[in-house]
């Protein structure tokens, strides 16, 4: 049986398009100091430091080696994780294991990406296998574009629904001081008039390239209760990877591809007695690189039946004031420093449970939250958080 682990400190940088005022190490240091201040701990008390980052995006090999001073990892155990888009989710799982093992009390978990250093789409295209990927790859965005088309064809969703999701995200981002894109979008029509980027994805439909870092401090049960009155318990985690050998990675018309979200949810929900996710969980912070993928994920995460994802947004169920808020922080479509993004999902879900999300706090009381990560060829990491176990 694992020992109980809680989140006792949360820190983020103010995510932006470019941060010329800091180098990568200093940017990460900002998030670390914010998390330490939140937990009122000193760096000396941290026993292990875990990083999540995708080096190809910045072109800095082994970035964690160059930031021991700025991050306070000198002399401490830890490791850097890169599992594509799910890196932040994987590093949360690593930090969880470190403390759940009972060998250590305090872990610092950091996700970061300084995307003003390089070109993300080029880096993703370079990550594909040289022969097959190169010829037809259009980066991640091409895959999501094809998914969007599939979703429109099979589920009956319209571009208006995608625009509604985008509007919801922007409302949340404008109330989140840390979010990157705060556009002040006013209406679905405004979004439908914007231009296409990779058809049928509009410029507004896809996540930005952001610079930012997010740090979490995990503590064992004994330490957590001494450090804070509001620990957020990491009830469970689940990780599922796979390699797609068949059709479109994110939108599979064959119905044969195994979606990692299905496998991960089936296991996590069963272990935690969750039979009706929208009732048994209070909100979710999901990793949605595009607004079309958000509607797809509502279905894959079992928040609704197949082909009904667009109905949740149409009825306002997933709005901040709704019965099942999804991404009240603005989500990935407003802020995406890729290595940090899944860590931000966990951080934002934890803030909601603590009641500390300020202006983007969901209306209903949040006692249980689900944070997801998505990446690579549709890998999934799930983290279930609770106010009390």
């Amino acid at each position: 049986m694992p020992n109980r682990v809680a989140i006792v400190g949360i820190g983020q940088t103010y995510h932006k398009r470019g941060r010329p005022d800091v180098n990568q190490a200093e940017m990460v240091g900002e998030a670390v100091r914010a998390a330490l201040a939140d937990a009122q701990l000193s760096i000396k008390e941290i026993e292990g430091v875990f990083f999540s980052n995708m080096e190809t995006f910045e072109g800095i090999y082994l970035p964690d080696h160059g930031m021991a001073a700025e991050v306070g990892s000198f002399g401490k155990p830890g490791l850097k994780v890169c599992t594509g888009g799910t890196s932040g989710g994987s590093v949360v799982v690593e930090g969880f294991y470190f403390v759940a093992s009972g060998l250590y009390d305090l872990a610092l978990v950091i996700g970061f990406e300084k995307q003003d250093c390089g070109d993300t789409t080029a880096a993703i295209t370079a990550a594909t296998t040289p022969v097959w990927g190169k010829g037809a790859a259009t980066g991640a965005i091409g895959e999501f574009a094809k998914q969007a088309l599939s979703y429109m064809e099979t589920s009956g969703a319209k571009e208006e629904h995608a625009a509604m999701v985008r509007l919801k995200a922007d409302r949340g981002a404008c109330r989140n001081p840390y979010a990157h894109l705060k556009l002040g979008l006013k209406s679905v029509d405004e979004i439908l008039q914007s231009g296409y980027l990779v058809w049928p994805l509009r410029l507004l439909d896809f996540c930005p390239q952001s610079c930012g870092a997010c740090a979490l401090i995990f503590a064992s049960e004994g330490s957590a209760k001494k450090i804070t009155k509001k620990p957020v318990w990491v009830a469970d985690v689940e990780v599922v990877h796979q390699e797609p050998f068949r059709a479109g990675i994110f939108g599979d018309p064959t119905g044969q591809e195994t979606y990692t979200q299905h496998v991960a949810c089936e296991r996590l929900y069963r272990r935690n007695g969750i039979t009706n996710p929208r009732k048994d969980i209070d909100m979710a912070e999901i990793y949605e690189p595009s607004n079309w993928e958000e509607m797809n994920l509502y279905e894959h995460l079992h928040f609704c039946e197949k082909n009904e994802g667009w109905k949740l947004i149409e009825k306002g169920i997933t709005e901040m004031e709704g019965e099942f808020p999804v991404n009240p922080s603005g989500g990935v479509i407003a802020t995406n420093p890729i290595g940090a993004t899944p860590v931000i999902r966990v951080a934002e879900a934890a803030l909601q449970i603590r009641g500390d999300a300020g202006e983007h706090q969901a209306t209903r009381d949040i006692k249980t939250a689900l944070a997801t990560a998505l990446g690579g060829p549709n890998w999934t990491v799930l983290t279930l958080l609770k106010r009390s176990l």
Partner: protein
Amino acid sequence: MSKVTEKLEGMNVWIYHGQIYIPNIYSAGAVGSRFLVGLRDKKRIMGTRCPTCNRVYVPARSVCKDCFSQLDEWIEVSHQGTVLSYSVCHQPNPVQPVETPLVYGIIQLDGADTGFVHMLGEVDPEQLRVGMRVQAVFKEERVASILDIKYFKPLG
């Protein structure tokens, strides 16, 4: 487009010659920029001092590695220093700043508590010694880069 795949003799195996060519831009950050601008505009080499550990870091950096304090005390250090170690590189590589043989060393400038890597010039490799005293030679045209220092030459 040029051929990028080559067949191996005698078997149905092809070798794909690829490259990853993504340009990168790195920010020096506020502290790094102030150091580099000092080199360009005033031929000044600056460090930052940790008051707790009483250590001066050169090139200037923003955090002390031992006590985690943020550093904001700037100190100018001498252009002269001591060679802590050195090596001569004969193998060329596209990322090198100058052609081989490339002589580089770790130099601790007077007033600094750390060494940093830079090139040694106007010196015969036979005459390199650990502990030798060197002096910075600046370029005439400087662009706020660590290479605004052309190399360090032996003193005296």
